[in-house]
């Protein structure tokens, strides 16, 4: 494919207890994680959660107040960005406007003092990989957003860095382009096997792209895991709510002997820890784990259809049961206002008053 | 390490800018013989200011102030309507007119001054406060128009429209809504016009003979070729410099907030 992967060392990245404060705000609060060689690692979270700051600390654009950054075990915390051999794709692409596309990709290689032949080889190969070989002679102002984004990627790839960092590279693209670019990124990363750390607020992107995801909120890491783990075993309410479209339904319940009572719904559970009895909990169930036709393991609940949002291929039904409104993802719209919902009891998530997950199984 | 370098440079910059000013101001209040002998003068006095005032700089100072104020008034009178038109009204040729006004400022004052002097001599405006005011206004006018036009442009239309909705007449809208909003900007423009006049030296020198402005008065001995004999004695130089920069300090202090606004958010990193 044009790249000699043998020359690029795959590198692991480790963060140990990184703290970064701005004035009175703690942007990054004791963050630690390790990214393995060749892994596609996503930092996911709402804006202001500290994910971009964390990325910039890895890049060397910011220095942490405390904690260490290690590349393959080497402490690079105080190494300036220019010596870290990373490739970065910025949110605004940062494609230098006063140079042609070719020079944008080539200049970092010139700085590295590569020979002209080598530079030309790499630039052409990188451009080929992201399909912009025909644009090399153009200036950035002549390119569309999607094309500029690919220039930024090509520039990072041609650099043949040890680590690839990406700061919300798809967020400025329109929806259609985003899906396309996402697929291309997956393909690219699998081929090149560069250790990649990717920041986004879009949970769909994270689920599709990541080998593992770190969900962040308010400067802290909520959970690190594969997309599957994050989705099916969210460690707290925040993660459960942030992941999944449409978002998870929450309603309140109280723990009783052998079961949890939510008023309209009573679910028997095994192995309830004794200390939990009498405590209030939050119960979560995803819209796609509720059905309007009977399912195995489904507990029936009667309610009234309030709104049916038509998404084209399916509906989001808002069903009211007393004070509680549950969103249900369904292929069909129920004929009548009175609906019976079937809640999949194996897919219930139980959260304590402190909003952390309680691991108990339904009976 | 980098931080240390940054603070060091910041300190050096401050030193570089402030030292000439502070030392001169200090010297202006010092007994001159003591000043000659010691690095830091030990005896201080106000007598040079008094003498300087009596020697005629008092008159020059007053004249500079008068001309400055008149310049502000005149350039406001002529320029604010134009600034309002450019800033708020839509009309054909607006861009060209803006450029033309800007172009007038490009014309060197040095070239204007001599013919003006010649003309003024004929019509009796030579060596008068009004004559100098006319020249200073010509210099300040383009600035006043440009500054006020951007100030007027920055008043959100909704505020004025709300006034219409609530039944205010055009004049009331102008005085009760627009004017208070533009007042700070206008004050800045006025100070700027005053400063231009206050600092201006070429036209002031050429257009006056006996009735000099302060800068012209300081420059006069050199201009008249009086050689070493006519040179201003040291203490008066210090005093003159000190007096001349007072408006500068005031203006810059006032303008600080506007500059930060103009420069956008104070840098990242």
């Amino acid at each position: 494919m044009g790249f000699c992967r043998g020359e690029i060392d795959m590198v692991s990245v480790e963060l140990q207890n990184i703290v970064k404060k701005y004035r009175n705000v703690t942007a990054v609060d004791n963050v630690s994680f390790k990214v393995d060689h060749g892994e596609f690692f996503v930092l996911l979270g709402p804006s202001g959660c500290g994910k971009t700051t964390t990325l910039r600390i890895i890049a060397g654009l910011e220095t942490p107040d405390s904690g260490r950054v290690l590349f393959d075990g080497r402490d690079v915390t105080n190494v300036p960005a220019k010596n870290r051999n990373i490739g970065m794709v910025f949110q605004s692409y940062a494609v230098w406007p006063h140079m042609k596309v070719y020079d944008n990709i080539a200049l970092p290689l010139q700085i590295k003092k590569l020979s002209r032949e080598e530079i030309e080889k790499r630039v052409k190969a990188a451009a080929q990989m992201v399909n912009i070989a025909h644009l090399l002679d153009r200036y950035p102002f002549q390119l569309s957003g999607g094309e500029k984004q690919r220039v930024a990627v090509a520039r990072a790839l041609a650099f043949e860095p040890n680590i690839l960092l990406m700061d919300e590279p798809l967020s400025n693209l329109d929806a259609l382009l985003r899906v396309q670019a996402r697929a291309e990124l997956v393909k690219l990363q699998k081929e090149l096997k560069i250790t990649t750390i990717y920041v986004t607020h879009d949970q769909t992107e994270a689920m599709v792209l990541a080998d593992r995801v770190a969900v962040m909120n308010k400067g802290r890491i909520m959970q690190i895991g594969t997309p599957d783990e994050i989705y099916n075993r969210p460690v707290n309410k925040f993660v459960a709510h942030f992941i999944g479209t449409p978002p998870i339904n929450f309603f309140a319940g109280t723990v009783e002997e052998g079961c949890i009572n939510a008023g309209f719904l009573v679910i028997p559970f095994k192995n309830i820890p004794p200390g939990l009895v009498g405590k209030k909990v939050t119960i979560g169930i995803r819209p796609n784990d509720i059905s309007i036709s009977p399912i195995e393991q489904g507990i029936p609940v009667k309610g009234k259809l309030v709104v049916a949002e038509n998404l084209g291929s399916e509906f989001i039904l808002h069903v009211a049961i007393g004070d509680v409104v549950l969103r249900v993802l369904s292929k069909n719209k129920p004929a009548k206002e009175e609906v019976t919902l079937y809640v999949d009891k194996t897919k219930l998530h139980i959260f304590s008053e402190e909003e952390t997950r309680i691991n108990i199984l339904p009976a | 390490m980098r931080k240390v370098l940054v603070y060091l440079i910041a300190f050096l910059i401050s030193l570089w800018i402030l030292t000439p000013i502070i030392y001169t101001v200090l010297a202006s209040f010092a007994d001159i013989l003591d000043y000659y002998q010691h690095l830091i003068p030990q005896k201080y006095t106000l007598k040079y200011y008094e003498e300087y005032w009596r020697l005629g700089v008092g008159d020059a100072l007053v004249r500079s102030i008068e001309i400055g104020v008149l310049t502000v008034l005149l350039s406001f009178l002529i320029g604010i309507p134009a600034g309002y038109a450019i800033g708020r009204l839509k009309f054909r040729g607006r861009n060209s007119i803006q450029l033309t006004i800007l172009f007038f400022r490009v014309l060197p004052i040095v070239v204007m001054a001599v013919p003006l002097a010649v003309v003024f001599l004929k019509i009796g405006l030579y060596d008068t406060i009004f004559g100098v005011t006319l020249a200073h206004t010509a210099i300040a006018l383009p600035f006043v128009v440009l500054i006020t036009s951007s100030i007027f442009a920055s008043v959100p239309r909704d505020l004025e429209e709300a006034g219409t909705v609530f039944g205010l007449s055009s004049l009331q809208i102008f005085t009760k809504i627009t004017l208070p909003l533009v007042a700070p900007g206008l004050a800045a423009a006025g100070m700027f016009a005053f400063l231009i006049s206050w600092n201006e030296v070429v036209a002031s020198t050429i257009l006056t003979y006996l009735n000099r402005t302060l800068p012209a008065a300081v420059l006069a001995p050199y201009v008249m070729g009086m050689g070493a004999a006519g040179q201003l004695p040291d203490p008066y130089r210090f005093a003159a410099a000190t007096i001349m920069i007072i408006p500068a300090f005031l203006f810059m202090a006032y303008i600080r907030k506007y500059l930060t606004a103009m420069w956008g958010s104070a840098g990242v990193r």
Partner: protein
Amino acid sequence: MEQKIRIFLPYFLILPTLIYEVFISAYPIAYAIGMAFSGNPPALVQLFQDFERFKEVIFYTILTIVTVIPLQLIIAIFASIFFLNRFRGRELVLYFFILPVAISEVAGALFWYTMFSSSGLLNKLLIWLGVIPNPIYFFGYEFRDRTLLVIVLEEVWRATAIVFTIIYAGIQMINREYFEAADVFGFNFWQKLRYITVPLLKPSIQTALIIRTLFAFQIVGPILILGGEYIRVMATEVVYWYSQRMDPYIASAWAVLVGVVTFVLSILYLRMFRAGEGA
């Protein structure tokens, strides 16, 4: 009727300004050109006749301009980069740095006289430190070359702030990420400066150069106060010939030369920067 007023209103409001400027700025300039060409031989030609003096004036004019302006530009660029750093007290230091914008050339000249006169700060400091036994003279005919140094220092001290204001505004508008990308991709300080900062600052540099050059040719204060009669530039010749020699024709001739030179240089700047623009 109301409609007609509305259409003509803007022009009414602007008219006084235009009329004023035409009478007080434009007409005198035409008059000056007229005076410069009048006389027998024309005043402009008379300038060349005293060739020694002419050479001297041109020499000193070029010398001061060519030394001062590039210095100011370079310092302004570095200062702009410097002030992008965040540090405590930055607002204050910025205020100090641009304070000279409001200071007149006459006041500036006086301040630097205080620094370099025989009883000035520099001399007294060096004597006090024991470095020199007697003061070093910077002013006077024999020391003309040293005076030039003081003049250059004064202009750099005072007018760099004007150039800086323009460049600093320009640098703020550059997307921070262009610099960060350069950081990430291994550029050192000088490489960033050469490949990213300066090219992206071109429009601001162009504006700053034009404005600065425009005014640089009209500076008389420091030349006269510090240099006395020993250093002559084009602008001081205007003042000299009018005030001392009472010859408005030659004064106009010099003034017109100033105008022509500034005009030509501005066109050159515009051309120079247009050629470099890629976007």
